[in-house]
């Protein structure tokens, strides 16, 4: 029982970062109706820039800011090159372009820092906290807190600002939003920037919690973000959060009972089964 609860706690911590990645993915998908394969690589570039900066300065706030800024810049580049030209055209073209830029961004990052492993300043220098029989890493608590804060901020943006009304209008019906005078192109760029900022922050939290950076970060973030988004029902922000947390829980528990190799297998199997069964909350109407 204790193991179950501990695994649940660990799963929620990891799930928090998946949830954040899912939120970033869903913001872009909701507004643009397209999957952005360069989401992870943009985060990777931002994090790599921060890693490069960490050789000179170890200030965590500065590094976080660099990671966020780098990701936002990369994200804006992706939006202008891959998504803006295909707004009215075929969705696959945007996705193919985002794949091409994925390759670009990854190579750019590895040119900057060619090794397979870099250390990154730790988010917290002490050991895990103990609550009776359970332990929780401080880094995990910080990530959870960040996830909650980001969700609250996004919620406020969406429901209490003019920007939020425009975003939700575009998500509901892009054509009707255009007819209401909303500049969908400019809005897409702003949403991309927001999603990228969230991604950059998440990337920073991940690498500073693990104290290391590897080139796998790009693909890994894209994959986890997409999995979280799909598990929670495509296009729903609360769903992305639930999906991310669920993914974390599934991974933690299946790793405990089935071992590390079957951990990923279980997540994929669950996603496949859900997609095959098509429960109504998965929202499997046509979507690119």
């Amino acid at each position, binding site marked *: 029982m204790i193991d179950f609860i501990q695994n649940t706690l660990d799963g929620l911590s990891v799930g928090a970062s998946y949830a954040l990645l899912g939120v970033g993915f869903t913001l872009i998908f909701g507004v643009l109706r397209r999957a952005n394969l360069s989401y992870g690589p943009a985060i990777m570039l931002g994090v790599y820039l921060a890693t490069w900066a960490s050789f000179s300065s170890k200030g965590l706030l500065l590094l976080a800011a660099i990671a966020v800024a780098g990701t936002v810049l990369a994200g804006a580049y992706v939006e202008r090159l891959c998504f803006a030209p295909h707004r009215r055209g075929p969705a696959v073209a945007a996705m193919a372009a985002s794949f091409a830029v994925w390759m670009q961004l990854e190579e750019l990052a590895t040119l900057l820092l060619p090794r397979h492993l870099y250390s990154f300043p730790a988010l917290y220098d002490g050991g895990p906290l103990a609550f009776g029989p359970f332990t929780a890493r401080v880094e995990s608590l910080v990530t959870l807190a960040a996830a909650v804060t980001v969700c609250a901020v996004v919620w406020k943006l969406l429901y209490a600002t003019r920007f939020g009304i425009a975003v939700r209008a575009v998500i509901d*019906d892009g054509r009707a939003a255009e007819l209401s*005078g909303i500049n969908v192109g400019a809005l897409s760029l702003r949403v991309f920037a927001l999603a990228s900022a969230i991604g950059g922050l998440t990337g920073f939290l991940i690498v500073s919690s693990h104290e290391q950076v590897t080139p796998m970060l790009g693909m890994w973030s894209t994959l986890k973000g997409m999995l979280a988004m799909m598990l929670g029902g495509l296009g729903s922000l609360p769903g992305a959060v639930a999906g991310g947390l669920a993914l974390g829980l599934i991974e933690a528990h299946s790793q405990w009972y089935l071992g590390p190799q079957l951990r990923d297998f279980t997540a994929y199997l669950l996603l496949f089964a859900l997609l095959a069964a098509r429960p109504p909350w998965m929202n499997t109407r046509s979507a690119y």
Partner: protein
Amino acid sequence: MLHVQDLVTAYGKIEALKGVSLEVAQGSITCLLGPNGAGKTTLMMTIAGILKPKAGSVSFFDEKLSGLPPHAIVARGIALVPENRLVFPSMTVLENLHAGAYQRRDGVAEDIERLLRRFPRLKERAAQAAGTLSGGEQQMLAVARALMSRPKLLLMDEPSLGLAPLVVEEIFAIIGELHRDGTAIFLVEQNAHMALKVAQRFYLMEQGRVSFSGDPGSLAEDEVIRRAYLGSSRA
């Protein structure tokens, strides 16, 4: 105020508008009739900026509009109430109205109050999600939302589609009110009978072209209605 000259709009190779020319005079109610597939919605979408024309021009107060994006067209004072309403289903009535006012900063709250007074049923449902409204209520919401941008010209694409006769009368009463307030209205309607009762001028479109124009009374009404529903090629 609105001049459409030889407008050609195509979907790939298929030309839906084959050279349309018409005018909407300031402050008037002009209606566009014609059978299904004539290109009426395509014309509305081209004027609103959703579709880009292949040739020809649209000008508004002597300014060329063709080629501008939809938000720029709204900024110049033209708003479209689209076919099928297209309200924002997950947003409340109030939020729908705010969306319509997106480009404005001033006087939005007063306008919302005014519109809710004019559409009491919307006021009752102000906090309800637009997707749960009835067809007639959604139509009123779509009109109110378009009015939030304070347009000088209101385009309406089939406002009476799928609505009960009592509701249709309400809609046309509102059209009459807007006319009295000075807003110009360009109306696409299947219900030729109701449309001709309010319009000062009408155009008949068939197969991508304007085939007839005039004021109500210049053609016998049943002749107009027959051509509006069936087209003149099928006598």
